[in-house]
Structures are given as C-alpha cells and as structure tokens.
C-alpha cells in the first residue's frame, strides 16, 4: 500500500494511479481520491498542482477512425489467408502449463475470498436494519403513512419533518439521557435545538449523524443503495457503525468520521461502506440576512468578496492570500447562483476554480 501522505508533487505526477484518476475520471477513482483528500485536507493545493501538471501533459489520441482500423484488420486477415499456413513449432513448454495451473489456483482462492467477504458483509448489513436497531429498545414511534410530510415536535425543543413512507422512533429517556438519540427509517429534515452537553444523534441503518444544534436532512430508505445526509445550517458529524465495528476489531483506530458543513451533502454507499462528500448543485444562502445585503461590488477587495461569499453559503474557499491581495472586483452578483458568481469573479481576474472534496480551490496568477 502506497503512503500518499509522503508524496511530493513529482511523486504524484508520476504515479500511475494518480495519472489514471486525472485522465480517465473513473467513478471508483474519484471516490478513492476524494476520500483521501477528505482525510488529508492539507494536501489539496499539492494535489491541485500535480493535477494541473498531468493535465498539461495530455496528448490527444491519433486522428484515425474505427472505419480505417476495420479496413486495416480486413487487410491483415486477407494477407494471412493468402499465405501458406506456417508449420506449427514445438508445443508449449511444460513450465508454462504449470504456471497456468498456479494462476488458476490463485484466482480460485481470490474468488473464494470474494464469496466469503460477501457472506460476512450481508450479515453485517442485516445488523443495521430498522428491526435490529429497535428490537431491544422500547421506543415511541411515529409512522407517516400519508402522502405529505408531517411535522413532529420533540421534548427538547427540536422539530423534524418526516417524509411520506418514513418512520422515526425515540426512547423514553430521550430528554434525560446523555445523548438525544432518534432512529430513522426513510427521510426526515431535522431542526435541532442547540445543546452542547447532549449531542443529538440520528441512527439510520449503519450511519450515525451527530450534531449539537443545526438543521439537516437524512435520507435512508431500506430500499435505497445509499444513505444521504444534507446539511443546511451548522455542522454535523457522520460516521458509520459498520466501519466503526470493523475498525475497532482490527486496529483499534478511531472510527472514520466525516464532518459536513452547510450546503455539503454526504452520500454513503451501503454496499461498499464508502463515503463521498459533494457540494449541492444549487447551494443556498445559509445566512438569511445576507439575502437582503446587496452583493454589488465596486473596486472591492477580492479577498473580502471571497470571504463574504464563503460566509453567505457556508462553503470553504481555498486560495492564496498573498497572491490575491492586490486583486479587486467590480461586479453585480446579487441575482446569480453560487457557481455563476464564482464564474464571474474568476473570469474577471483570469483565474480558475475547481471543486475538490466539497471545497472550492482557486487557482490564479494574482493581480498586478
């Protein structure tokens, strides 16, 4: 296993896996690298630079179409038909056969391993269904059988909106224990009353979302292949019970926790136990009063504009302070959506941006 934390830029640029990610953008690579970046936020700029270098080394495929390739293949087949069949040489040496058998044995073992993994994995998932979560607990339950969301007020002052086809449960000690725990099957939007001493936890299949006080949505229908957590305000911590159990038995490490901030969405793949953090397509303003504040700028400092933008949407914007110090912006951003605002600013100062792991990374030469 490579330790990418020790990599410098050149190491990344010449790494086969890294190059494949940049050029091919396979979904499995995206997930792996985004997770790695989530765990190593200090490596964002390094990775962004390495990506740019790899991208500048891109070489276009040759101008030859499949028609020409088919014609060349036909030409080859014609040639070998015209030629007398070559005398078969000595048969394959036994050594190669042995090697084949060894390869087959390894393959079988790997397949066996895969079956074992799937069996154990299925059992694993069954541990986190609604039934298993609630069987040993006596809960107060609400089920929404209507076709509209219903609002439920909780004893601690929190409220939730329960989507159709969803159910929620909580224990008798909800308002007295050291945690405020609720169990969810389906989808609900939570507005949690702030109480730093008693964290609020939502158990949805194997995923646990932990907050102090904030608003967010959890979507976890048994039939879905993913569990999603979307944050509107505040900060939430999400971790997987499945991951926790596996990790604890193996290495006693701290469970992999993901922290979500506003306008970030977490997608958890149940099958692969994988997290992916994404930005919402349409980020909403998180500070309501910013709505009234006019986002019109004249010769305004770029750093100030970025910090206002960052605060208004609760989205982290990464940039180089020194380089952008002299940049100014004159723009009217009030009716634009988040990405359009970024586009306008970046084109004005000749910069570019990338969304990496739920954050915006600005690339720029700076201004004179």
């Amino acid at each position, binding site marked *: 296993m490579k330790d990418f934390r020790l990599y410098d*830029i*050149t190491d990344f*640029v*010449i790494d*086969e896996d890294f*190059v*494949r990610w940049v050029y091919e953008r396979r979904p499995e690579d995206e997930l792996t690298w985004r997770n790695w970046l989530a765990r190593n936020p200090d490596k964002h*700029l*390094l990775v*962004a*630079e390495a990506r*740019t*270098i*790899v*991208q*500048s*080394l*891109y*070489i*276009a*495929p*040759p101008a*030859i179409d499949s028609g020409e*390739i*088919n014609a*060349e*293949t036909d*030409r*080859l*087949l014609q*040639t*070998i038909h015209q*030629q007398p*069949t*070559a005398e*078969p*040489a*000595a*048969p*394959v040496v036994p050594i*190669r056969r042995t090697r084949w058998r060894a390869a087959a044995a390894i393959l079988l073992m790997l397949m066996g391993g895969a079956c074992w993994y799937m069996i154990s994995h299925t059992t694993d998932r069954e541990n986190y269904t609604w039934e298993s979560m609630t069987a040993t607990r006596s809960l107060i339950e609400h089920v929404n059988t209507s076709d509209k969301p219903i609002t439920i007020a909780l004893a601690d002052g929190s409220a939730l909106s329960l989507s159709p086809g969803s159910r929620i449960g909580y224990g008798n000690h909800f308002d007295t224990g050291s945690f405020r725990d609720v169990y969810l099957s389906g989808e609900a939007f939570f507005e949690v009353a702030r109480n730093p001493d008693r964290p609020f936890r939502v158990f949805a299949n194997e995923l646990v979302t932990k907050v102090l006080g904030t608003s967010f949505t959890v979507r976890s229908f048994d039939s879905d292949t993913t569990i999603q957590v979307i944050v509107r305000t505040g900060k939430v911590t999400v971790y997987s019970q499945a991951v926790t159990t596996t990790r604890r038995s193996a290495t006693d490490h701290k469970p992999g926790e993901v922290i979500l901030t506003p306008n970030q969405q977490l997608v958890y793949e149940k099958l692969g136990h994988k997290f992916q953090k994404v930005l919402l397509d349409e980020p909403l303003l998180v500070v309501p009063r910013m709505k009234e504040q006019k986002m019109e700028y004249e010769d305004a400092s770029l750093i100030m504009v970025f910090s206002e933008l960052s605060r208004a949407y609760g989205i982290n914007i990464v940039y*180089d302070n*020194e*380089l952008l110090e002299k940049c100014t912006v004159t723009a009217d951003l009030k009716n634009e959506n988040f990405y359009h605002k970024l586009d306008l600013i*970046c084109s004005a100062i*000749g910069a*570019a*941006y990338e969304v990496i792991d739920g954050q915006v990374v600005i*690339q*720029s*030469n*700076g201004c004179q």
Partner: protein
Amino acid sequence: MPLHDTHADQNLLHQLQQSDEQALATLMKQYYADLYSYGIRFTTDTGLVKDAIQEVFISLWQRRNNAPAILSFKYYLLRAVKNKVLKSLHQLHHNTPLADWQDGYPFFQEFSIEKLIIDKQVSEEKAIAVRNTLALLSKRQQEVIYLKFYQRLDHGQIAELMNISRQSVYNLLHETLQKLRSLWQAEFVK
C-alpha cells in the same frame, strides 16, 4: 502498470495459439490506435506506419505458437512497431549508418492545449506558454513523456524500449517536470 497482461489478453493469446483468426483481429482492433499513435511520432508517412503495423501482426500470426509466452503484449507490440518503422525509414535513407540513425531518430510530439484551456479554464497565453515549454524539450524527453503519460508504460519498459537505463528515464522525466513546475508555480502556494 502490472508486468503481466490482463487475463483478457492472455486468453486472446491462447486462442491465437489455437489459430483463431478472430482473436488476431480482436487484438489488432484493440491496440491499433495506440500503435498508430506511436508510429506517427517517427514519420509523417502514415502509409509507412500502417504497413509496419501490418507486418508486426503478420509476424505475430506466423509465430502464434509462442504467443502465450509474451508477458507484456502492449510493450511487445510497441517495440515491434518502433523497430519496423525505424528500419523502413533507414532503408529510405541508405546513406545513414543504422547506428547513427537510431541515436538521433526523430520524434514528433504535439501537446493538446485546447483541452487544457477547456478543462482547466486557463488563459490561452498560459496554455501557449506550456506548449512552448514542452516544444523545447529534447526528442528523448518528449518520448519519455509520451510513453509515460500516453502509453502509460512503467519506467522499466520505457528504459528497455528506448535503450537507456532506468536512471536516465527518471532523469529525463524529472527535468521535464521541474520545468513545468516552475511554469505553474506562480499559480499555487505551498
């Protein structure tokens, strides 16, 4: 890149050993674009490159009995195409001794800045600066970059294909990357 070929390739090579023409056709279709791309680095004569690829596959067919012994099929093909193309070019220029020719064979490389402009939203000036830097690389530096980033060979295979040491491959690669780094450096901060 794994040293051994994928199982799919190995299966095709075993079918080839059984004189399966369709396996030969499949292998050609699969690797044609990569081989053609490499061939046209040495000459602008596309007809010569196509003939060279034909010859490589004809000789593969003639030696099909030993086909499954080929460990890295892509490397084998790239090497065969390079040898054939350079040999044909040499025959067209009788007066040059082969040894001289092989040291200084040409290598044409274009980097596509359009993609850089579109994907990274960098300015055209910046993209042109990148292209100019890459254009100033030596032929051998360009070949290393090509084999590494386009064909994705490993350093050992690049060394063998270019008849140089692994250390030279690393040095050629490193010099190029240093140049690119200093070009982009202004855009990033440590």
